[in-house]
């Protein structure tokens, strides 16, 4: 069926994570400008570096960003695949209907006029 498992709640995690405007701004920036260091992100975030690091940690826990260490610097990049559950219900339903239409055609082929 098109509703997924009842135990998983990936939507909850993603929406909770992106509901915070500062986190969303950081994530948008990574989507828009590509990989960034914590320092570069802090320069435009309007909050302190520890706050930025904390937000990046939450984004990372949700799978929305990945980090890469290079020397003393940590570079962060957006992980667009993590967003698939948010834009996916329509494709799940499309798959459901394709399957139902197969069964419908099968039925029509068996029905009398």
């Amino acid at each position, binding site marked *: 069926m098109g509703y997924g498992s009842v135990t998983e*709640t*990936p939507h909850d995690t993603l929406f909770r994570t992106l509901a915070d405007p500062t986190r*969303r701004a950081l994530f948008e920036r990574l989507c828009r400008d590509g990989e960034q260091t914590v320092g570069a992100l802090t320069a435009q975030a309007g909050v302190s570096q520890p706050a930025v690091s904390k937000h990046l940690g939450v984004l990372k826990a949700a799978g929305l960003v990945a980090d890469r260490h290079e020397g003393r610097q940590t570079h962060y990049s957006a992980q667009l695949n993590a967003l698939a559950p948010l834009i996916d219900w329509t494709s799940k339903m499309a798959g459901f209907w394709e399957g139902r239409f197969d069964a*419908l055609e099968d039925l029509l082929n068996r029905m009398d006029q």
Partner: protein
Amino acid sequence: MTETKTVVVEREIGHAPEKLWRALTQPHLMEEWLMKNDFQPQVGHRFNLRGEWGGVLDCEVLSLEPPKSLSYTWNFKHEDPAYDLTSVVTFTLTPTPTGTHLRMEQAGFRPDQKQAFGGAHAGWKGFMDKLEALLAKED
């Protein structure tokens, strides 16, 4: 202010619209291809679709025009908002030389999406637009 999402599935069916209409509106035929149900072809009639997986959909006939179009609500109540779904399903039948063009459109949203798409997060809409553009580029 709620943004709906729509899924459209279309198919060329090698059977006349009248016959297809029966399969879409007669409960024993609907059960064979869709789900168990207590459908009646009557505007305002409330019915349930019962899935093999145990889920029950709450539905209400919104409009029907034999053998051209049929529309009903398709609501799935779930305590977890991630699985709660409020939507409308519309079937449109168009005769073709070889049978019928069947179009199914499902328009709806989930409460979590409603919340996220709502006025409380004004930046979300633009963000999603940009995101979709980015994802399109990734393909």
